[in-house]
């Protein structure tokens, strides 16, 4: 019983982290059909910028803010300089963003070195809640709260604001959206920056949890992709459900079948895609 509760809780908190990472990626996919291999780098660089902020005397909220803004700017620059010209060219997108991912990986190594670091978290977020025999680390509860908050904000943005309506219109039919006077390029840039920003937030939050280390970018990237494809590109609900599913499968896979853990994660994903090639909530 204790095992199941703990593992479910761990799975949900990891899923919450994945939602931060993949929510924005899903919008980027859905809106621009851009395959962004740099998304994992945003996560890694966000974590590193947060770390440097704390090293220079900043506090934890400031670290999140600094990481998010710095990476959003990098995302905007990358999008403006290269990606916006590559609409509809999947191969070009994959190779260009992969090039950036390699460059960022090496730059991070030059700037921050090869040692793993953990971002120190505020005292109020350390420790654990006790419920009977079971411990719930406060930091994991915090991650779930952040993800829930971000999900709510994204939902409000998409469903309740004018910009959100433009975004949904662009996801549904970019040509038609352009036809009725929506600035599709501007909207796309906002979404791309938003996705990069959320990935960076995930990176800083993860820094207090799994740490920041070289290689984290390519380690997390496939997870983000899998969440998006299982949930369905461009669907917020899909990203949420996909994140939880991947978080739980990953956690139980690692706990129950350590030798086959990636297999138990990716094989069910492939099976879902075999039945629904556009994901659970995706539209063709």
């Amino acid at each position, binding site marked *: 019983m204790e095992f199941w509760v703990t593992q479910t809780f761990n799975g949900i908190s990891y899923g919450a982290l994945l939602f931060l990472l993949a929510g924005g990626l899903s919008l980027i*996919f859905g809106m621009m*059909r851009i*395959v962004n*291999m740099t998304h994992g780098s945003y996560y890694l660089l966000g974590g590193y910028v947060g770390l440097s902020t704390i090293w220079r005397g900043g506090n934890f909220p400031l670290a999140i803010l600094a990481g998010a803004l710095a990476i959003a700017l990098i995302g905007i620059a990358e999008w403006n300089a*290269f990606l916006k010209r*590559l609409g509809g*060219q*999947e*191969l*070009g997108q*994959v*190779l*260009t963003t*992969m*090039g*950036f*991912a*390699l*460059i960022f*990986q*090496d*730059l991070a*190594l*030059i700037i921050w070195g090869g040692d793993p670091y953990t971002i120190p978290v505020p005292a109020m977020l350390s420790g654990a809640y006790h419920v009977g025999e079971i411990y719930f680390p406060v930091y994991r509860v915090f991650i779930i709260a952040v993800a829930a908050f971000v999900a709510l904000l994204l939902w409000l943005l998409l469903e309740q604001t004018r910009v959100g309506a433009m975004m949904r219109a662009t996801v549904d039919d970019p040509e038609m959206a352009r036809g009725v006077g929506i600035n599709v390029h501007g909207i796309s840039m906002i979404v791309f920056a938003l996705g990069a920003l959320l990935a960076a937030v995930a990176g800083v939050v993860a820094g207090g949890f799994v740490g920041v280390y070289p290689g984290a970018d*390519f380690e997390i*990237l*496939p997870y983000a*992709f*899998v969440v*998006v*494809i299982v949930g369905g*590109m461009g669907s917020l609900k899909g990203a949420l459900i996909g994140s939880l599913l991947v978080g739980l499968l990953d956690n139980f896979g690692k706990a129950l079948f*350590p*030798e*086959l*853990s*990636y*297999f138990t*994660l*990716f*094989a069910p*994903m*492939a*099976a879902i*895609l*075999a039945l629904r*090639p*556009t994901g659970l909530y995706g539209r063709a």
Partner: protein
Amino acid sequence: MKVALLSVMRAVVPVMFVFLLLVAPPFLSSFLLTLVTQALIYAIVAMSLDIILGYTGLASLGHAAYFGLGAYSVGILATRYGAGFGITLPTGVFLALVVAAIFGLVALRATGVYFLMITLALGMVVWGLAHRWVTMTQGDNGISAIPRPDLGLPWSLARSIPFYYFALAGFLIAFWILRTIVRSPFGQTLVGIRESESRMRTLGYNVWLHKYIGFVIAGGFAGFAGVLWAYYNGFVSPVDLQLATSVEVLLMVALGGRATLIGPALGAAIIVFLKNLVSVYTHRWLLILGAVYILTIVYAPEGILGGIKWRPKKVKPKTLGVKDLTEGEIGG
């Protein structure tokens, strides 16, 4: 005149190239010889990917999986059971074919971005097994000390020159078969599907089956290259089938020129040489490789050979547009 010159070149250049490859070893340092050997093996993977990426128009993000299956077949069979080339080669290729046949069923339900993503997830399944199934694959440590095959020839393949000829033979066989495939009616049908799937379907072709067979063939040849790679390197690890390797093969094809077969082989050679030579001079080779990715797409989106017209210029189907009408009026 120009067409005649081109056709002479098309006949002469490949012969010269094969001749150069045959006589090269004595003129090369042992370092350069191993690089050419590596390039020949990666050229097979790149050419196999060209079948689905270049000729069929499907970008796969999981092609390293089949390469890895071939390599791990050798690693496991040769080190654990002392199996010879006569067993490892068919097993490696067969395993890659079978897995490609299963994955193809799933992946070919989608196209475009979705195809990319599904092949990525499928590639990760195989990578995950290599990474975590430690009792079978030794995980991240990889399988080392794979002996070179003994073919019963008077020359030991443990030495670099005989192994070079071994890899060259593998490359030439693969190239010859793949070239035969792409020039066959089957290969032409793949091109037709790339250009217009709906038109080919209307003409009565079984589009899905053609794509599927192309996908499986590509997987089989990648497995074949994996077998050679494991023997060349003496070592296999999850790095051989990780996502970055799959993307690197995509780069080789894009850099050399899609749907040219020899272009991807050239792209493979360029990337292998670049990676190894640059890393001699600097630790910052990832920066340079990253720049190559971006520059390829910015400056040579059609690849090196893609820019050259080998065949007489294709006649574009003419549609009567506004421009034609006005031009006609002015002309008349």
